[in-house]
C-alpha cells in the first residue's frame, strides 16, 4: 500500500466522521452546536486538502509504506478485546494470568533460538511474579480496586 492510498483512505474516513457528527450536531441547539460546527468545518477543510493533495500528487508521495505484520497486530487487538471483555465475568487476576501466558508465549514465536518448553517456563514465571506484584502494590499497598468476577 502506498502513502497516497493511505492518505485518500484517511480523508474519506474523516469525511464520513464529519457527516456522522454533522447529522448529530444538526439536532442540537445554540450554544451546544457552536463548537462542534467549528470543528466539523475545520476537519472537512483539512480532509479536503489532504484528499486534493494526494489526488494530484507527484511521484514522491507514492512511495510504499513500511511492511507491517498485520496478522500479529490484528491478533493482539483481538486477544486484548477478549481479555478485557472477560475480566468482569471471570475476574481480573484469573484472566490476567491467562492473558499474560498467551501473550508472552505467542510474542516469542519468532525467537527460534529458545525452545518451546523454555518459552512456556519463562512466561509462567513472569506471569506469577507480575500477578503477585500487582496484587501487593495495587490491592494491598495502594488500595486501588481491580475488577472482580466469579473467580479472583
Amino acid at each position, binding site marked *: 500500500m502506498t502513502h497516497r492510498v493511505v492518505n485518500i483512505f484517511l480523508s474519506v474516513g474523516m469525511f464520513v466522521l464529519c457527516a456522522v457528527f454533522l447529522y448529530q450536531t444538526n439536532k442540537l441547539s445554540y450554544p451546544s452546536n457552536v463548537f462542534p460546527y467549528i470543528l466539523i468545518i475545520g476537519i472537512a477543510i483539512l480532509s479536503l486538502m489532504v484528499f486534493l493533495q494526494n489526488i494530484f500528487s507527484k511521484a514522491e508521495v507514492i512511495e510504499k509504506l513500511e511492511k507491517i505484520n498485520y496478522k500479529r497486530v490484528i491478533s493482539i487487538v483481538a486477544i486484548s478485546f477478549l481479555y478485557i471483555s472477560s475480566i468482569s465475568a471471570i475476574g481480573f487476576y484469573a484472566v490476567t494470568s491467562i492473558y499474560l501466558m498467551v501473550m508472552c508465549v505467542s510474542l516469542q514465536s519468532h*525467537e527460534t533460538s529458545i525452545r518451546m518448553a523454555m518459552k512456556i517456563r519463562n512466561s509462567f514465571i513472569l506471569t506469577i511474579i507480575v500477578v503477585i506484584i500487582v496484587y501487593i502494590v495495587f490491592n494491598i499497598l495502594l488500595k486501588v480496586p481491580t475488577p472482580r468476577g466469579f473467580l479472583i
Partner: protein
Amino acid sequence: MEQNIFELIISGFINSLSPYHIFLMAFGVTAGIIVGTLPGLTATMAVALLVPVTFIMEPASGLVMLGAIWCGAIYGGANAAILLNIPGTPSSIATTMDGYPMTKNGEADKALLTSLISSVIGGIIGVIILLTLFAPLAQVSLKFGKPEYFWLCIFGLTTISAMSTGNVVKGLLGGLFGLLLGTIGLDPIAGVPRFTFGYRPLVQGIQLVPALIGFFAFSQMLTLMERDEKYIARYKQTSSLLKSLLSEMLQKGKSVLLRSSILGTFIGMLPGAGGPVASIIAYNEAKRWDKNPEKYGKGAIEGLMASESSNNAVIGGALIPMMGLGIPGCPAAAVIMGGLLAHGIIPGSKLLVESGDVAYTFITSLIIANLIMLPVGYFMLKLVANILNVPLYFVAPVILVLSSIGAYALHNSMLDVFVMVIFGTIAYILSKAGIDPGPMALGMVLGPIAEDALGVSLVIAQAKGSILQTLFLRPVSLILIILSILSAFSPLILDYLKKKKIFESEVKRNDSSCC
C-alpha cells in the same frame, strides 16, 4: 508584617528539616515516583490515596507528606514517557516528544537524569515564586475570565503547528479530531448530551486518562509488537554522566529552564490549566525561541528540560490561588485543599494570620522535598532504566495489564478500559496515516476547557451585546491573541527564512565558484 513573614519562613524551614519530616518527605517522594511512573495513575490519585493517612498526623506533617508525593508523582510521570513513550501522568505528554527519541538514540540515562534535574529546578523555582509572590500573583490570576481562558487554550493549541513541522495539515487534523472527541458527553454550558449515539454511558464523556493511556500506551505497544525487535532500545549505562550533563544543561538550557519554570508557575496559577497545558506551552516556547527548532522531536535535551521544569513548577503556581484565595489551580491542589480543610485549616486571606506556621512549613517543605527528590530519583532511575534490558515480549503484555488497571482505577469502570483499547487502536491506525497521538491528546486536553470558556464567553457577549468587546478586545485576551498568531505562524516564517538563507548561501557559493 514583613518581619513576621520572614520569621515564619525561617521557622518553616526549621520545622521542615526535622528528621521526622525528612523521613515523611523521602517516603512521599518515593511513593509519588512509583505511582507517577505507572501509566494511568495520576499525581492527583497519588495525593488522594494518601490523604486519609495524613488524618492521624499533625496538620503540618500531613501536608509535608502530601506535597512530597505530589512533587514525586509529577516527576515520576517522565520515566514512562522517556523509556516507553507513555506519559506516566498527563503532565508528561510533552516529555514524550523528545524524551523517547533520546531513548531510541541510546541516551536513556541522559534523558532520565535531565528530567530529574529539570524537575527539581522547576519545582524549586515554582516554590520560590510561591514563597515570595503569592499574595500579588493571586490577584493576577483573578484577571483571567472565561474569554482569556479561551485564548489561553487557543495559544496552547497553536503548539500543534510547531509540533508537526513537516506535515502541519495532518497535525491540525489530529488536533481537531482530538477536540471533536472531547465534545462527546454533556455540553458544558447547557448540559445537553451530545454524540452519545444512544449509548447512555457515553453521557459522562470520554475520560481523559483512559484515552491518553490508549493513545500513548496501547498504540505504542502495538507499534513495538508489530516488529520483530527484541528490545525497545539498547540501554548502556553511561559513567560519570552527572558532571557533563550539568555543564551541558547550564550551557544550553539556563534560559529554557528559567523561562519554562516561570511559565509553569504562571499557568499553574490559572484554575483548570495545570501541568499538561504548562508543559505543552513551555515546550512550544522552547522550540520557538531556539535557533535550531528542527532538532525538536528528535531528542533535543532542551525540549525535555522545558517540559519537565514547567510541569513541576506548576505545583508552586497551583498553590498560589489555593493558599491565597482558597481557589485550587488544579485537581491535586483541590485534594490538598481538602486535606487542609479536614485539619480545620481554611485557605484564603486569613491563612497567614491563623495558621501561618503550618502554611510556611508546608511551602518551605516543598523546597526540601525537591532537594530530596534528587538523590531518591537518582537512585531510582538506575532501577527504572533497566526496563530497557527486559525483552519486549515480556514488557509489552505487562504494560497492557498495568494500563488496564490504570484505566479502570479512575472510576472503577470497565467502559474506561474499553475506551483505552479502542482509542489505542484508532491512534495506531491514524499513526500509520501520519497522524501522531500528540496533537490528538492536546486536542482532548484543551477541548473541554476551550469549549467551556467559549460557551460562557458567548453567553456573556450575548448579554453585553458585543462579541468583539467580550471575546477580542480585553487587554489580556489581546495579548494572548497576538501570542497565538505568532506561535501559529512562527514555524512557517522560520521555515521560510531558513529556506531563504540556504538559497542565498547557495547563490553566493555559485557566484564565487563562477568567478
